[in-house]
């Protein structure tokens, strides 16, 4: 297919995944400077949410905030300055589980908070309230290709609409009953802030193009397991190049068939 690549700058990175509590620790592991142990992270309280919303925030919302807050701290900019793209395959399956069980009962009593938290864009809603984020935001789903779908949308929102953007990919474990149907057993979130113009301290420049480049895997078996275990962890090959501060090419699965080829250029 013939198309000009979409060019954007990566300004800052956030991540929270088993054994990867933040970007500095992740960076060291992806550079091979520290061993990887996939231990679950302790629970997280979003820092930016007011108590009322914090109380109501679901596990998926908390997981999304974990990486998003971390990326915004790293960028040093006000989170409300970014347009936002949230992308998740399954958001909070535990809510669907509770509602499914409630509706199978004769009383059919659904918690109102569960219902308003059941929207796929719950994290985006809490985020906009937390950071007074009134710029456009969207929430996508593309099953296992949710990360690349989100990256493309955030890049295009940045390039076409002219907003620097925050991309947040996240998925959390399925409840027991749904696990045989959707095998997600861990909580992962990855976040990038993306800029149209070169930021003061860029991580890298990305050129995105849809094609059929074979999907990039990771050599370390534990990290490769993590990559495959959660849709938000599909970002890991890209994050590895960003950690190594090395130019190169990675490919992630694309929702339209084929792959999203990401050319990473590290300058200076």
């Amino acid at each position, binding site marked *: 297919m013939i198309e000009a690549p979409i060019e954007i700058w990566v300004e800052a990175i956030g991540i929270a995944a088993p054994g990867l509590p933040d970007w500095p620790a992740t960076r060291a592991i992806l550079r091979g400077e520290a061993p990887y142990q996939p231990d679950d992270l302790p629970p997280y309280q979003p820092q930016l949410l007011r108590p009322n919303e914090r109380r109501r925030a679901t596990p998926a919302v908390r997981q999304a905030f974990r990486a998003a807050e971390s990326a915004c701290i790293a960028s040093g900019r006000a989170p409300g300055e970014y347009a936002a793209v949230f992308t998740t395959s399954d958001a909070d399956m535990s809510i669907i589980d509770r509602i499914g069980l409630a*509706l199978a009962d004769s009383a059919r009593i659904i918690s*109102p908070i569960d219902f*308003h938290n059941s929207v796929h864009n719950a994290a985006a*809603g809490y985020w906009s309230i937390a950071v007074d984020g009134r710029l*456009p935001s969207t929430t996508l789903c593309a099953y296992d290709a949710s990360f690349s779908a989100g990256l493309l949308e955030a890049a*295009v929102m940045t390039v076409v609409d002219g907003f620097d953007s925050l991309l947040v990919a996240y998925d959390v474990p399925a409840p027991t009953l749904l696990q045989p149907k959707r095998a997600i057993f861990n909580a992962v979130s990855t976040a990038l802030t993306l800029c149209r113009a070169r930021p003061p301290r860029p991580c890298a420049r990305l050129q995105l193009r849809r094609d059929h480049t074979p999907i990039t895997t990771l050599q370390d078996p534990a990290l490769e397991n993590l990559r495959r275990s959660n849709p938000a962890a599909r970002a890991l090959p890209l994050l590895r190049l960003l950690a190594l501060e090395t130019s190169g090419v990675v490919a992630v699965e*694309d929702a*339209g068939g084929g792959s999203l080829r990401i050319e990473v250029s590290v300058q200076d």
Partner: protein
Amino acid sequence: MTPLGISYFTATSALGRGLDAHLQALLDERSGLHDAGFETSRLHTWTGEVIGLETPLPTAFFDWDCRNNRLAELGLLQDGFIDAVAAARTRHGADRIAVYVATSTAGVQQTELAYRAYRSDGGALPDWFNHRTTQNSFSVADYTRLRLGLAGPCAAVSTACSSSAKVFASAARAIAAGLCDAAVVGGVDSLCLTTLYGFNALQLISHDICRPADVDRNGLSLGEAAGFALIEPGIDTPLRLLGYGESNDAHHMSAPHPEGRGAHEAMQAALTRAGVEPSSVDYINLHGTGTPVNDLAEDKAVCALFGRDIPCSSTKGWSGHTLGAAGALEATLSLLCLRHGLLPRSLNTRKVDTRIEGNILLQTRRAPLQRVLSNSFGFGGTNCSLLFGTVH
């Protein structure tokens, strides 16, 4: 932005299958809502149900079979849409046509059925329940992509009740970025117990028929719909997407900003992107769900931006609130209104709430239209406005 031609569009809802059925229902002032119940619901409410969803999907798509994907299939079959996309595929190539389909429910009814089976039989969820192809929000976008044989950029947009307005924005961006040359956009949402009992838990469902802007309005009637459009910039067609505007209220998860702050920003952004003044808009298809606070907040935003005279109405008295499909259904109704010079009245509205200051149409009018704005707002404070127009 450069206006984008809309070469084909179609709708299926409680008003019927295809554009002619929708136009006729608007002209006849015939609501598609009924109070005969839905499935095993014991709630006393009105619903906008699509008739004829008992037919399973073709064998090749057996795994995808659920109410939501059946509705998508029924929608795609109307108005020659599948043939139109096939012709576009020949013109542009399958990998140059994007697919953005929105949903809020996806096939959650399938999950409800699976949980009921589990409750009666115990053990595990039944073998026939396929999460990926029915429950997951991507299922209907993926189904549409596969059914139409397209391989361009693809995603499901799921931002509650603004979802399928936002697919137009995603498509416009992807085209502008050169990611694709054309796009199929759509919204599909289907009736289910989750939304019926969920909105009931939030006390947002009316026991009466939905009466947008009425002094006695007390909630929404749920509906279901599939709406699709083919956006092709290079095609000579009179109907165009002129602008889109997106914003967040940043206020509350399930209640709008009382002054309609985000709604105002979304409408303003659509006008700015189109490069037109508020006075150039001829009619607004309101979000107008019929809940007390939503209609009031939207009215404040409309009056602040457009003044009190601009004709406006919600079409949810016809179709019910079709949630994740509302943006696409109301986009197709807006395009129909543009094509036929129709300003539909606010059906079921008897006496406008005196606190609502806008020009809510109580009589259907016929007049040539050049620009129509369509509003869609949702939980999480997400707002999207689309501006459509004719080019002569």
